[in-house]
C-alpha cells in the first residue's frame, strides 16, 4: 500500500479543486443557508458533477459507474470539504449507495445505482433514532410481516439529506430487542409511500437532515436489502465507507480553515506587529499543522485499505475518524479564537467551519467512540 496519489488521482484532485473553487466558493454555501433552501444543495451542480464522472466513482461500470474506489472519491470530497460544498456524496453515494452495492439484489442495483451514478436520483440511509448516540444496533423501529412483504413503524432522526431522497433505506428491527445485534433488516422505502412523512431537521451546520416518521408503511418482499435479520453488518460496512468519505471532507475543511487562519495571522496587526509573530500563536499553529499531516496519512491509509480489502481496514477507519474528528475540532475552534471578535460574527466564514466540524466529528461516532472501537478490535 502506497500512501501517495497516483498521477490520475493528482489530476482528479486538480480538476476538482478548480471546479469547486469556481462553482462553489464558501459564499455559495452562505447563499444556500440564507435562502433557507429546503434541499440544502443544488441539483444542477450535482448533475454537472455526475457528468464529470465523480458521482459514479465508486460504482462498477456495469451500473454506469467508473469502477474506482474510495481513494479517488476522497480526492473529490476533500475538494468539496475545503469550501463546505454540501453536495450529497456521503448520503447518496456512500451511505445508501454502498449499502445497495454491498447488499442489494441485481434488480435493486439496476433500479437505483444507475440513476444515482447518472446524477438523477438521490438516496438516503435512515438508521439513527432518538438517544441512540452511536450504537448502531439500538433500533426500535419495527418491521412486521405483512403478507409477503413488511409493514414498518417507527421514527428515524438525523437522516442526512433525507429531504432530497427518492428512496430511503430504513434500518428496522424484524426480531429481537432494542440493542440486539441480530434481527436488523434494511428495507427500501420509496419517497411518497403511504404513511411516510419527513420533517426537516435544522442542525447547526445548516445542511440537509430529516426526521422521518413511518406509520405502518407497507413495502414488498423485494424491498429487503441484503439478508433479512442480518442488516447490522451491512449497516456497519456502509457506514464505514461513508466514514472514510467524511474523513476526506473533514480533511479538506481543516486544511482550508487552517489556511484562512494562517492568512489572518500574517495580515492582522496588533501592538504594531502581525499577530502571527506572537509565539503563543505560532506554536499552536505548528501543532495544528502536525495534526493535519497526521490526519491526512490516516485518511489515505483507511481509503486504500478499504479499496484493497485488507484485514485492518476497520481499525484504520476508526484511526482516521478519531484523529480527523479531534483535529478538525481543534483547528476550527482555534480558527475562531485566533480571529478574535470578527470570528464570532455570522458575517465571517470561519464560524461555518466550526459548526460543520461539530456535526462531522459527531457523525458516525466521535473520537472517543472510535478509540473504543479500535481497542475492541485490538482485543482489549
Amino acid at each position: 500500500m502506497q500512501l501517495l496519489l497516483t498521477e490520475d488521482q493528482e489530476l482528479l484532485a486538480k480538476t476538482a479543486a478548480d471546479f469547486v473553487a469556481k462553482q462553489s466558493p464558501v459564499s455559495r454555501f452562505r447563499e444556500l443557508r440564507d435562502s433557507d433552501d429546503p434541499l440544502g444543495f443544488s441539483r444542477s451542480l450535482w448533475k454537472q458533477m455526475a457528468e464529470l464522472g465523480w458521482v459514479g466513482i465508486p460504482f462498477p461500470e456495469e451500473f454506469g459507474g467508473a469502477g474506482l474506489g474510495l481513494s479517488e472519491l476522497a480526492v473529490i470530497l476533500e475538494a468539496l470539504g475545503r469550501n463546505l460544498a454540501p453536495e450529497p456524496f456521503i448520503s447518496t453515494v456512500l451511505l445508501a449507495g454502498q449499502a445497495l452495492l454491498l447488499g442489494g439484489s441485481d434488480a435493486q442495483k439496476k433500479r437505483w445505482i444507475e440513476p444515482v451514478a447518472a446524477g438523477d436520483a438521490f438516496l438516503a440511509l435512515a438508521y439513527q433514532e432518538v438517544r441512540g448516540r452511536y450504537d448502531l444496533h439500538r433500533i426500535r423501529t419495527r418491521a412486521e410481516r405483512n403478507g409477503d412483504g413488511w409493514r414498518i413503524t417507527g421514527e428515524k432522526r438525523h437522516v442526512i439529506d433525507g429531504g432530497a431522497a427518492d428512496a430511503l433505506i430504513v434500518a428496522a428491527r424484524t426480531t429481537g430487542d432494542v440493542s440486539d445485534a441480530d434481527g436488523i433488516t434494511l428495507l427500501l422505502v420509496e419517497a411518497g409511500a403511504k404513511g411516510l412523512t419527513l420533517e426537516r431537521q435544522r442542525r447547526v451546520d445548516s445542511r440537509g437532515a430529516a426526521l422521518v416518521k413511518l406509520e405502518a408503511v407497507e413495502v414488498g418482499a423485494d424491498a429487503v436489502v441484503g439478508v433479512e435479520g442480518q442488516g447490522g453488518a451491512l449497516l456497519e460496512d456502509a457506514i464505514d465507507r461513508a466514514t472514510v468519505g467524511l474523513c476526506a471532507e473533514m480533511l479538506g475543511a481543516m486544511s482550508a480553515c487552517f489556511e484562512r487562519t494562517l492568512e489572518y495571522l500574517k495580515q492582522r496587526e496588533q501592538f504594531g506587529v502581525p499577530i502571527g509573530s506572537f509565539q503563543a500563536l505560532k506554536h499552536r499553529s505548528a501543532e495544528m499543522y502536525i495534526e493535519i499531516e497526521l490526519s491526512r496519512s490516516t485518511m489515505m491509509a483507511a481509503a486504500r485499505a478499504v479499496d484493497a480489502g485488507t484485514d485492518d481496514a476497520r481499525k484504520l477507519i476508526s484511526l482516521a475518524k478519531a484523529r480527523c474528528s479531534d483535529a478538525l475540532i481543534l483547528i476550527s475552534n482555534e480558527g475562531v479564537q485566533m480571529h478574535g471578535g470578527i470570528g464570532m460574527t455570522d458575517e465571517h466564514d470561519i464560524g461555518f467551519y466550526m459548526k460543520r466540524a461539530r456535526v462531522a466529528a459527531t457523525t458516525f461516532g466521535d473520537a472517543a467512540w472510535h478509540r473504543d472501537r479500535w481497542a475492541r478490535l485490538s482485543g482489549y
Partner: protein
Amino acid sequence: MADLDNFRAEVGEWLDANAPQSLRGVQVTAERGGTWGGRRATFEPPDMKPWLQMCIEKGWTAPSWPSEYGGGGLSSEAAKLLAGEMRKRRLPPPLTGFGLSMIGPTLLRYGTEEQKQQHIRKIVRGEIRWCQGYSEPDAGSDLASIQTRAVRDGDDFILNGQKVWTSYGDLSDWIFALVRTDPKVKKQEGITFILIDMETPGVSVRPIKLISGKSPFCETYFDDVRVPVKNVIAEINGGWTVAKALLRDERSMIADVFGSVADTGKQRKPGSMLANLARQYLGGADGTMLSDPVLRDEIARCELDDKAFALTVQRTRDAAKAGHQSGPESSIFKVYATELNKRRSELMVDIAGPEGLGWEGTGFDKDELARTRGWLRARGNSIEGGTSEVQLNIIAKHVLGLPD
C-alpha cells in the same frame, strides 16, 4: 524488484545461519545494550563482539555508505530491506553511535578526500567513538552564540573554552565541535566546525549525573588545545551550514529511534504492547475488555497517535521515492516522535501503578526498573537535539511562513 527479492532472501538466509541466537530481543537504549565501539568499547551481551565483526566484513554497519570506505554500498531500498530483516529477527544493530548517525554522513557530504580516508573506515569498523561538542553553558537553544575560542597559530588552532551536555564525552575518542574563529562578525558567520582527538593535551571531561541515575553526559573543557587546521570541515567560518546539516541528520535519527513502535517490530509479543502490559497488572483474559476504562482510552490514544505517526513517516518516504516534494516536512518528526515517546514511557509507568515506582532492588522486577529509568531518560528526548519549542519555532517560520 526481482533483485531486491533475491537480496532479501539471501540476507534472511545469511542472518538465520550466522547471527548469534543470544542477541535476539536485545534492546539497545541510550543507557545500555549493544555496542558503541571505540577504543574503550564494551559489548552487551558479549556476543555483540562477533556480531559486530561479521557485519563489518559484510559492510553492514553502514549499509548504504560507499564500499570504498568500508560501507555496504547498498541502495537505500536494499539498506531498508536489510534493516527490516534484522528487525524481523529482533537483532540489535551491530554498531550504534554518533559516528554512524551524525559525523559520518557529514564527512561524506562536506569532508575532503583526505578527511574521508582518515575517518570513515574507522567509524564503519567501530574503532573510533565520537561525541558532539555543540552546546555550551550559555549556548543551548541559541546555539549560534557559542563562545569556545579557536585562535590561529600557524598550521594549528589553539582552543579554549567549555562544552556541556556532551553525551558520552568520557567514553569517546574524538569530538566534533563548533568553535568561534571570528568574534567580530554576525554570530553565525564566525563559527568553524572542527574535529578534535580527545587525547590531545588540554582536553578534559567531567561526567554529569542524569535524573535517571546514569551519567551519559559530560562537561568538556578545552585548555590551550592545539588542533591542526586540516581538521576543519568545510570552510573556516563556514561551520554553521555544516552544523545545521548535521542537526537535521541528528533530528531524523532521533525521530527514528523514538518514533513509532507500530509496524517496526519493536514489540516483543504480538498484539498491543501497551494492552499486554496492562493485562499483567489488571488481569482479565486475553481478548476481554481491560477493566480500567480510562487507562484503556489512554492506551488507545497512544496507539492511534503512534500509528498515525508511522503512516506519516511512510507517506513521506513514498513521496520521496516518487521524487515528490509534497510529503510532510520532516521537521515535524523530531517533535512528534519525542513528545510521543515521553507520553508512551509515562503511560508504561502509570500502567504498573505502585510497581512503576521502583528505583532499584527488592520488590521490583528487572523490566519494571528499566521502564521507570526509561521514563526518566525519555524526558530528555524533547530537549536533546533541539527542544520541542525550538522545533515548533522552525515549523512556524520555515514551513508556515509566520513572521519573526
